[in-house]
């Protein structure tokens, strides 16, 4: 297909635009200018990613050579439907959360830090988009660390409200760095046995290689990415980091950061190693067990949390369990369900964390006490929270139902060592746990009375409410219009799984 002039650099633009815009934001005066700048940049980036997805949808995967250097030597950006979808998610979340951030950030962080805040936010966005876009394994590491380092700083900026943000950021830094270093070790081992860093080239070189070096490399990479995506035994950094970060950051990170890592895991497990790799089955079985453990363990912990932000953070870990479960099926349907949930969970969690952010702004706390009788005090926020909470549980007509339905459908068609019916029942059971903790929140908001003598509070500002409700409406919209999520995700899953060895399950 002929590409319109000027658009041949489209694959690089979503990464380059925020990267160039970030230092500019640092030069601005504290106030609304950096916010406006970051918002405009995020919208421009969103337009780029939409065009990119459209182009990939109509004319197939794009290979973009950075600086014109050809594939095995130069760094290439390889865009297929899977990463175009993830990039769209990141840019879309940024374009909703950045406008939302204004009032919330002014209340939660030091005024002098506002330009630095938006700079770090843009850098974080660059890193996440870069991880998704690049087709070079070492480039992945660099972008991973770009996004992680800015995230540590962003989490620590919550220290003005609660100093525990500092220790949370520090722990995140230690765990995140260990994860990234594990990834580099694994990459070194793979490079040692293949001599290439290009992800697609790696797949070709790894075919028919079966030795301990490659297996060790695989284990290191999976563990490293597992740390970054908060796979269950490696999730300890996540709850406090999400809990004490500024509200806008919680919303942005919960909706994007771990999702990009899920994509990376998919890319490694299926595109780079593929089913020819005999060790893969071990990993998929591990994902199955860890996914189910995560679904239950994190949900049960979430039920007993008294801080709503922390509850939602644990819920995120549980949702990652669903995504891992989808990966572990090793089928097109399973991976598609995983990708659909990546997208849908982004929508739900962004809405929920933004709702909590509105409460934090007006009541100064995300503790359960603050939510008592909220439906009377802040009806817009409360109903936004209720509807997106129902989406998290998986009630039709919300996107949560689509996710669960696709996952269960995929589960029925697989033959893992746990019987499919049991897997489906477990998914249902953990959804009930979600119903318990969301129900607890709804109970507090609707049925409990506000504390005696509580002064009247105003609703959250329009910008925040608009962003929240945009996400809530998206939660319903994508139930009725599944062509973006379900169709794209199925095609993307096929492009991930169907490699040179043809399509098919691991079993």
């Amino acid at each position, binding site marked *: 297909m002929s590409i319109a002039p000027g658009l041949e650099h489209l694959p690089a633009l979503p990464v380059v635009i925020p990267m160039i815009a970030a230092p500019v934001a640092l030069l601005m005066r504290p106030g609304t200018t950096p916010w406006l700048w970051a918002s405009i940049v995020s919208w421009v980036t969103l337009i780029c990613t939409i065009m990119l997805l459209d182009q990939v949808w109509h004319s197939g995967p794009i290979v973009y050579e950075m600086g014109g250097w050809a594939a095995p030597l130069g760094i290439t950006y390889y865009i297929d439907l899977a990463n175009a979808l993830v990039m769209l998610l990141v840019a879309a979340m940024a374009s909703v959360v950045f406008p939302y951030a204004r009032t919330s950030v002014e209340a939660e962080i030091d005024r002098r830090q506002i330009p630095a805040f938006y700079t770090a936010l843009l850098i974080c966005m660059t890193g996440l988009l870069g991880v998704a876009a690049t087709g070079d394994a*070492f480039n992945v*590491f*660099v972008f991973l*660390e770009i996004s992680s*380092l800015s995230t*540590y*700083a962003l989490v*620590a900026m919550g*220290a003005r409200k*609660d*100093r*525990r943000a*500092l*220790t949370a*950021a*520090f722990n995140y*830094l*230690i765990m995140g*760095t*260990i994860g*990234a*270093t594990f990834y*580099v*070790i694994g990459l*070194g081992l793979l*490079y*040692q046995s293949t001599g290439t*860093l290009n992800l697609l080239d790696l797949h070709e070189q790894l075919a028919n290689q079966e030795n301990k070096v490659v297996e060790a490399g695989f284990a290191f990479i999976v563990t490293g990415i597992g740390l970054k995506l908060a796979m269950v035994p490696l999730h300890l950094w996540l709850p406090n980091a999400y809990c004490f970060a500024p509200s806008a950051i919680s919303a942005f990170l919960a909706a994007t950061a771990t999702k990009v890592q899920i994509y990376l895991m998919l890319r490694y497990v299926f595109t780079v190693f593929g089913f020819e790799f005999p060790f893969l089955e071990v990993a998929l079985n591990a994902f199955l067990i860890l996914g189910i453990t995560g679904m239950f363990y994190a949900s049960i912990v979430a039920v007993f949390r008294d801080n709503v932000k922390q509850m939602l953070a644990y819920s995120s870990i549980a949702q990652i369990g669903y995504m891992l479960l989808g990966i572990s099926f090793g089928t097109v349907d399973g991976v598609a369900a995983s990708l659909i949930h990546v997208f849908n969970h982004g929508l739900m969690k962004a809405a929920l964390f933004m709702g909590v952010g509105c409460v934090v702004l007006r009541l100064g706390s995300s503790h359960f006490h603050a939510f008592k009788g909220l439906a009377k005090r802040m009806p817009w926020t409360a109903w936004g929270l209720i509807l997106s909470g129902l989406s998290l549980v998986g009630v039709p007509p919300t996107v949560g139902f689509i996710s669960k339905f696709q996952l269960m459908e995929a589960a029925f068609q697989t033959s893992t060592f746990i019987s499919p019916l049991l897997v489906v029942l477990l998914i249902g059971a953990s959804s009930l746990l979600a119903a318990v903790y969301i129900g607890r929140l709804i109970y507090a908001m609707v049925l409990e009375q506000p504390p005696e003598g509580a002064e009247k509070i105003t609703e959250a500002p329009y910008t925040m409410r608009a962003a929240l409700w945009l996400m809530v409406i998206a939660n319903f919209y994508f139930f009725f219009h599944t062509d973006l999520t379900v169709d794209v995700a199925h095609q993307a899953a096929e492009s991930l799984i169907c490699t040179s060895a043809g399509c098919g399950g691991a079993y």
Partner: protein
Amino acid sequence: MIEFILDRYNYLIVITLMMIGLYIVFSRGNLVKTIIGLNIFQTSVFIFYITIGKVAGGTAPILMGGYGGGHGDGHGDTYHGNGHDKDHSAAHDGVHDKLAYEQGVDAGTADSIYPANDLEAAIRSASDQVLKAESDLHNVPEEFADSANQLASDAGLIESDTTNQMSDTLHDAPSELARSAESHANALYDGAASSGEAHGSAYAGDAAAYAGEILYSNPLPHVLILTAIVVGVATTAVGLALAVRIQEAYGTIEEDELEAEDYKAEFGHPITEEAVG
């Protein structure tokens, strides 16, 4: 068995450092010590990458003998050259100078590596001129375009011939080598300059290096690890900055005390002895 391990002592160092680093991170008591542990852990990875890149008996991946002072004049003349002709002659001069120098110096030496180096350097310098000339090619009138196209196809043949014959001639006497190299270099220059295929001649230079059997270590892991070092430094900086902020906010950077403070903030009462035991 012991020999097997001793032969791989570098991996042993990597693993030992890795374990020491991780142990310090996990058994930490002090935040700064944790960061130091993290640094040791990362250092083990740096050494691992250096180990990957090292080729036994290979030198540092720096081009041997290239870009010496011998042909500096040629460079200077052509750098801001205006026309194709001027570049052409200047480049030739550069090559001739170099070869003459080589003949004088190496006539008596039997070691074949050094001529190879200089040969390679000569070709390097030739290709270097070509790179400059290439930019001026756009000024060449239209008539040149046709002949350039024809020569472009020839250039590929010439290059492959050049490298093949070079490896043959390397064992001959240096003077003979120099003569053949001169003609090859000229042919190479003409072909490449006319077609503007500067990259091709650069590869020929690399091929000449191989012909001389100079063993280089793999530069790529070194480049990668330079990047990783930068990332590591950035991580350390952020970590230490956080430690400073924690010291300001809590008055301590001891993990146990921090945990006790956070526990108090979370549950409203300090950790009791029963809760710990």
